[in-house]
């Protein structure tokens, strides 16, 4: 429970004057994401604690270095949860890094991503100015949405100091059913079921099995389970599967492999030429584990493994690149914050 905001502000103010590159770090659980960078470490690991938690409002405000695992435990005491169900990476991931790297679990298509639950945040820009955007209320359209802009920015626009998040009640019941299916057949089933207003919170295909997770009230889950049929997965195995999926343990690249991520329309056909290893998010996210360094398809993200100094997030159109560079300049004119983490040119 320590507030290091002032110290962090001073570190960045000093770096602004001396034009010193900074590398933001807390649990250091996401080094495998984005590009490799160097710089003086801004250590967020001790900037921790709950600033306010109103269980009856379903809103929490926490400092960025607070661990996801601790947050989950705290919320569980009140039968509440983070709607975007992020990975905790062996218990070390923090909420600041989770927001910055836009980390969402299997329920993404139904309960939204980080941005859908993020109400506000504190940010120190590249001048070393501490600012607050958004707030703790449900709806807020005053000013530009600097809050959500940070999702996925990987610290390149500012240091996130605290975040306010909208919470949801914990599910009363949960149940996973599986179906033996090829990827093609599973994709059809996912598309069909996704549009049926069922209490689905996960649909993934892995190693010949389609996994469907149902969560919600008792009767809603039971009736949906009866409707879908399939093979019931025992609760221990179900928990282990969804946990392994979320934490990225299902597909681990060997040193000569790259794990590629594809994000697109859920009804895109399974590409015959590529070896799709995992389908997640009811078809909207797919994973390909391949040997060698060439992307098996266009428009993929080099998620894990391979050369981390390459443009891991793929190409960006020239007007979009120019715009992002101007936005970077608007927050961080000396380019000291996580420079090169997203793209070599930013």
């Amino acid at each position: 429970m320590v507030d290091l905001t002032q110290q962090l502000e001073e570190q960045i103010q000093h770096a602004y004057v001396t034009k010193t590159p900074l590398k933001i770090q807390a649990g250091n659980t996401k080094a495998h994401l984005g590009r490799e960078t160097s710089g003086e470490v801004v250590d967020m690991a001790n900037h921790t604690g709950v600033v306010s938690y109103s269980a009856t409002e379903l809103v929490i405000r926490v400092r960025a270095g607070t661990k996801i695992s601790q947050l989950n435990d705290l919320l569980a005491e009140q039968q509440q949860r983070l709607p975007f169900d992020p990975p905790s990476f062996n218990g070390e991931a923090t909420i600041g890094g989770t927001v910055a790297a836009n980390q969402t679990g299997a329920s993404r298509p139904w309960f939204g991503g980080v941005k859908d639950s993020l109400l506000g945040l504190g940010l120190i820009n590249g001048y070393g100015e501490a600012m607050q955007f958004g707030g703790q209320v449900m709806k807020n359209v005053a000013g530009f949405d600097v809050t959500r802009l940070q999702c996925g920015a990987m610290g390149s626009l500012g240091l996130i100091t605290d975040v306010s998040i909208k919470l949801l009640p914990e599910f009363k019941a949960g149940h996973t059913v599986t179906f033996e299916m090829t990827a093609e057949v599973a994709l059809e089933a996912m598309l069909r079921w996704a549009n049926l207003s069922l209490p689905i919170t996960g649909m993934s295909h892995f190693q010949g099995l389609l996994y469907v997770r149902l969560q919600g009230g008792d009767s809603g889950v039971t009736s949906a389970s009866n409707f879908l049929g399939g093979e019931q997965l025992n609760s221990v195995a179900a928990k282990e599967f969804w946990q392994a999926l979320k934490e990225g343990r299902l597909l681990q690249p060997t040193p000569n492999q790259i794990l590629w991520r594809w994000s697109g329309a859920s009804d895109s056909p399974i590409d015959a030429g590529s070896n799709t290893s995992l389908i997640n998010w009811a078809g909207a996210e797919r994973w390909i584990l391949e040997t060698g360094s060439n992307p098996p398809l266009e428009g993929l993200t080099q998620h894990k493994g391979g050369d981390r100094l390459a443009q891991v997030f793929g190409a960006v159109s020239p007007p979009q690149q120019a715009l992002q560079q101007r936005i970077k300049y608007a927050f961080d004119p000396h380019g000291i914050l996580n420079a090169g983490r997203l793209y070599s040119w930013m």
Partner: protein
Amino acid sequence: MHTLSNTSNDPVKQAGEAGNVAALISDLQQLLPASGLIMSTESQRPFECDGLAVYQQLPLITVIPETVDQVQGILRLCYSHRVPLVPRGAGTGLCAGAMPHAEGVLLVMTKLNKILHINQHTATARVQPGVRNLALTDAAKPMGLYYAPDPSSQIACTIGGNISENSGGVHCLKYGLTVNNLLQVTLVTIEGKLITLGGDGLDEPGMDLLSLFVGSEGLLGVVVEAKVKLLPRAPRVQVLLAAYDSVTAAGDSVAALIAQGIIPAGLEMMDHLAISAAEDFVKVGYPTDAQALLICELDGTDAEVEEQLAVVSQCFKNHGAKHIRIAKDAAEADALWQGRKAAFPAVGRISPDYYCMDGTIPRSKVGYVLTRISELSNTYGLRVANVFHAGDGNLHPLILFDASVDGELERAELLGGDILTLCVDVGGTITGEHGVGLEKMPQMPYQFGDAELAQFRRLKAAFDSEELLNPGKGIPTLKYCQEYRSLQHG
């Protein structure tokens, strides 16, 4: 009547502007057919304001393009001639965000109104910005789908306008605002270039530029195409109404229900004045002796709705509901909603004018804030009817006044300003869904500090360095803030 004078005091700049304008008009005539240009005062009159009609201004010229190419051409011309441009859709906004600029071009996007594609499999739609909100839901209906954001102007308002304002509606408690239901936007920059933000998937790598753009009130670019999410229609929708002897009890019911983990599809509240006005107008059987009403909509499968209905009814009873009415069928549900939806025009019948506010507060502060509003109402001698999205704490106090009485509009604005600062004081915001526009500029320096406002201005410059897109709205200038603060401390 409010008008804005944008006349520059700089004589050199003025001369330059006059020359620019003549050249711009000639270039626009080359670009657009005669039907796409409106120049006469009489024909431009319908465009001089948006839904907040107390702010009016005629533009220099109004253009109505029919193609994306024409939109790009118009922006290129405004940029090269350095002439301001204000984009607008149907003009249903409530913050004077689409009020024209006296020396600028008004860009009307309503003719780009095609639904390009609805994909039933992925439950998404690609639309042009001028498509009406309700037209999209109607088109998706045969596929069992609908577009969730449903502002009360949904019969007229456009998707482009909804994106610019991040519009909500009665169902955003459960299904989110525009920002939560949007996948992709193609916009034209002030230089006339096309940029696509977001993607076909759910989370693209990198900073979330799409979310930044949503709600940017026409200050960053002009939307020419959008891809939105559609939702499957719930198999069952159940509406119930609860009547209370006090607004505080109704407010407590709302907080208690949310705290129990129930998120209804909609949860609306009306106070006594709004109930009476609505009942007089639409006669749907609202209990006019009640001090507050809650209208609650639950949706889902039969099993889910039955389970929730029991919890909700019990919760409302426990927190002082005197009377609960559960709609027996779709017709009765529609009737219960009708009174809420007609509340604004109903209030319009009992007062020559009304002024709609849009603050959002923590749900637990509803009782306190309503009591304070009632005190302020007495102080200013103006009646206030309260109709609002109780579930997410988004208040719409309607200040009743008569613009023909000297000083009443000014008093209504002062009362409105006090209500907004009250919202900020309890940890809320000056606008939940209507936007800042021109109207709420005075309250921006109250909600944000100098560093945040300066950051907004630098962000604006990253998109529009010449400050041509909807100037004078949304984000106050440094000079404006200094004047505001000296007034506050003077």
